[in-house]
């Protein structure tokens, strides 16, 4: 069985509750109050090999916990996980050979050594044959403009330079599955684009599976075509990225029209049209929100062109940020 299979996955953490201040500290020292926190609960999903999967959810939904279990660093409380035929936390070392991981906040490079040396050490740790290693490095140099940083010790790199090196480091051993946890956090627009381009290019060449976690929806849209959404420790959606929330969330169109008597009557009648949920705007320019499952875009457009002399017309694509905001907020 290849790809990623997650069945009934749950994880609870033990956490000591402590009231603030010295009294709370003392109380916790004498009699710690332990509570169990559910990070993920009964999660089921599959990621076919070669996928470009986004793993989405609000802060604290359990994304990092899932990634830690999938990368073999942590054991689940219950449930079963298989990644390319291995149980990650039971065969951690064999598993680690075939995965690449970027945890945005943590460095896997050697702080005091030049970037090139870190890569040479990784080559030995993963036992990458020298020709493969040289070829990969050559490719990374051209994709990420790494020439300028290779001789610089990691501690003297800027965040953007270091992140480029971190991402390349996760791919140096030709992993079958790559987990990317916030790979562009804190980077400027140009660098974000370079990193997205790099991930896309390497995926196209190698066909590895990608599992990307990010709060930057441009990252997600540039890299992924599938999505898993978890919310409050549970699975909320799995399917094509484009399908995320689009059946349920209102969409909108904007248009300008020649103000005539007929148009004024048509505006007054608009709220009665089934599927229309809100009309906003002033004279001669309107924005209309509608439910896509009750009213198709084609029917709505036909209706508007029949009743108005349209001078300008635009359809607002639902943007992923807005979709997620709405999904995270819904009870």
């Amino acid at each position: 069985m290849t790809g990623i299979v997650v069945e009934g996955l749950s994880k609870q953490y033990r956490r000591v509750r402590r009231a603030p201040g010295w009294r709370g500290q003392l109380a916790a020292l004498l009699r710690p109050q332990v509570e169990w926190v559910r990070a993920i609960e009964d999660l089921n999903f599959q990621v076919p090999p070669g996928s470009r999967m986004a793993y989405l959810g609000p802060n604290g939904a359990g994304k990092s916990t899932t990634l830690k279990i999938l990368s073999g660093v942590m054991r689940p409380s219950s449930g079963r996980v298989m990644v390319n035929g291995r149980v990650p936390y039971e065969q951690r070392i064999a598993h680690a050979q075939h995965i690449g991981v970027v945890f945005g906040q943590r460095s896997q490079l050697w702080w005091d050594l030049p970037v090139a040396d870190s890569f040479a050490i990784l080559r030995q740790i993963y036992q990458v044959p020298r020709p493969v290693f040289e070829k990969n490095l050559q490719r990374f140099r051209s994709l990420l403009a790494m020439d300028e940083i290779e001789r610089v010790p990691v501690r003297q790199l800027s965040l953007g330079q270091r992140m480029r090196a971190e991402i390349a480091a996760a791919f140096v051993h030709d992993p079958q599955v790559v987990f990317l946890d916030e790979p562009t956090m804190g980077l400027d627009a140009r660098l974000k684009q370079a990193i997205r381009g790099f991930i896309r290019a390497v995926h196209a060449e190698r066909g590895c599976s990608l599992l990307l976690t990010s709060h930057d929806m441009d990252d997600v849209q540039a890299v992924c075509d599938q999505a898993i959404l978890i919310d409050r420790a549970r699975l909320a959606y799995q399917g094509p990225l484009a399908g995320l929330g689009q059946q349920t969330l209102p969409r909108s169109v904007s248009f300008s029209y020649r103000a005539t008597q007929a148009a004024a009557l048509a505006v007054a009648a608009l709220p009665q049209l089934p599927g229309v949920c809100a009309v906003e705007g002033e004279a001669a320019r309107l924005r209309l929100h509608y439910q896509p499952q009750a009213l198709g875009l084609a029917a709505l457009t036909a209706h508007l062109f029949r009743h108005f002399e349209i001078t300008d017309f635009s359809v607002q694509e639902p943007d992923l940020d807005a979709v997620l905001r709405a999904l995270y907020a819904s009870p």
Partner: protein
Amino acid sequence: MTRYTALILASLRARLAYRSAFGLALLGAAVSLAAQWFLWRAIFADQPERPLAGFSLAQIGSYLLLAQAVAPFVDNRLEHDIAADVLRGDIVVALLRPQHYTLQRACTALGTALAHALGVALPLLLGSLFWLSLPWPGAAQAALFVLSLGLATGVALALNTLLGAAALLTTNIWGLQTLKTALLGIFSGQLIPLSFFSPGWQQLLDWLPFKALVHTPCVIGLGLAQGAAAARLLGQQLLWLGLLALLCAWVWRRAGARLEVAGG
């Protein structure tokens, strides 16, 4: 195998990147050595010719010097590194690599020890040999010393890895470390040769692993234990190394299941 030697070299080179640190560390070691030497000279002041507990003043000097050379291999701060890894959650990076965690840590500690040995202990040792014109050891004696030093290093790594496992239970092992440093200072032979203890204590220390760390390599390096006595000491070191390594493997296998990785 090269998977791990790469880590030793990486750690060695990372340490050597800070040149000025070595100058200061060398100075520190020299000052500490001088202080101990003058203390012992005062102790021997009344009877410069008569040996104390089997040591002449000159032999004490050589012992202190060797103990200083052994120190970097024994004070590897491995348990501190493990605790810091657990506390800050950096252990996750080590666990993402296709290597055993404890061996990764041991290799890194070994690299640090080698850097200190090359940058501090070796210059100190050579400098003293020339400057104080101490007798050079014979080839066989030097070889036995290196063998014993290797075993002492192994015992220290195993002992500290075992202590590091405590970090998984309590997260912070500061108290445990303080206790260890105190015990080691007295019982390993770092502060004074173990022959200064009363016979009862010596009997007890013979059964504990601490003397395998400093006492054994120093005594063998000085030629105070030769032939069968040296073989017995080396055998004890080997036995402790095996025992502690097995215990380590057992404890860490159980500890692994308890591990929670801190931080998002």
